[in-house]
């Protein structure tokens, strides 16, 4: 009962968060700009989901993405998909370097945010709140729009 109540409360909180954060597009904190965060819908809660975004660092000093959190996922990692001799591998990245005056693009088939232990299925058309924790810029909260499971580009 308490568990259900807690879960309900978390969903409400997630909903509140997702509506509070600006939907998609660009979010700027200091020198850091987060552009078009989006996610793919998940198959229920037992399969992980992926989220993508572009981070620009307009500053003269490098920054690093240390962690990503979401109220909808128990465990979030940044993974790199790499291919060598036709073999695909997913490698967890401890940190993601954000070079000065640089841009890092997380996109399908490359570096992605992997969301595990989903608290609820990610449904197309909804929003996924993400907290990006950067070494220098601090915490940046964004809301990723959820596209279809087969989506390859951000939802319209």
């Amino acid at each position, binding site marked *: 009962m308490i568990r259900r109540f807690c879960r309900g409360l978390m969903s409400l909180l997630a909903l509140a968060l997702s509506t509070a954060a600006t939907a998609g597009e660009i979010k700027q904190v200091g020198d850091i700009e987060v552009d078009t965060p989006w996610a793919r819908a998940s198959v229920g809660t037992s399969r992980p989901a992926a989220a993508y975004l572009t981070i620009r660092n307009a500053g003269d000093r490098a920054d690093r993405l240390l962690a990503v959190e979401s109220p909808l996922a128990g465990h979030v990692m940044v993974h790199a998909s790499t291919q060598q001799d036709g*073999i*695909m591998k997913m490698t967890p990245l401890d940190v993601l370097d954000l070079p000065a005056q640089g841009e890092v693009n997380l996109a399908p088939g490359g570096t992605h945010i992997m969301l595990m232990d989903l608290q609820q299925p990610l449904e197309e058309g909804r929003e996924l709140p993400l907290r990006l924790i950067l070494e220098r810029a601090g915490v940046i909260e964004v809301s990723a729009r959820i596209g279809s499971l087969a989506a390859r580009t951000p939802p319209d």
Partner: protein
Amino acid sequence: MTARTERLIIAFAAGLALLGIVFFAFSVFWHDDGRAGQTSSSSSSSALIKSDFELVDQTGSPIADEDFKGSWQLVFFGFTYCPDICPTTLDTVSAVMEALGSDADSVAPLFITVDPERDTPDVMADYVANFDSRIIGLTGSPEQIKAAAQAFRVYYNKAENTDAPDDYSMDHSAFLYLMGPNGEYVSHFSHNDDVEKIVAGIREKI
């Protein structure tokens, strides 16, 4: 320098050169062997790739390569726990099937899991339902999957995650194989080839 030492030096140099040739030949051969069926499409290695499997589809029904006799097969391996590459590949295959129009009637798109532990027929059914309805999701026992992967010369390996044992990933060959009406290897594509290239490649053969 005496004639004897001169002969010795020449013999030594010749021996060294021979050793070099042998080593070179061995390294080239070994290198090619290691990649056979993965990137090479030469006749010697492609002859090794064949469609040969006994698996179950997403409804739980047994299905084997013989069930596709007379049909072309577009075969790719992956796993549903993969949130990035696999949905992208399935989406590519869906788009290929659509772009093929009536030519698609003679092509069976087969998605074979390399993760039978987690990918039960029910899971495969939930997963493939998100893509073109003609895509058939195949799973089986670990032994059946191993045999199927061997027939296609597909490499896969469980990449353990020490932090979260349930969240392991699978490294795997990410090719799309076009197999002929007798289950023979015809051609292959990379998972990141664009839809137009794959469609043109299939049309050229069928």
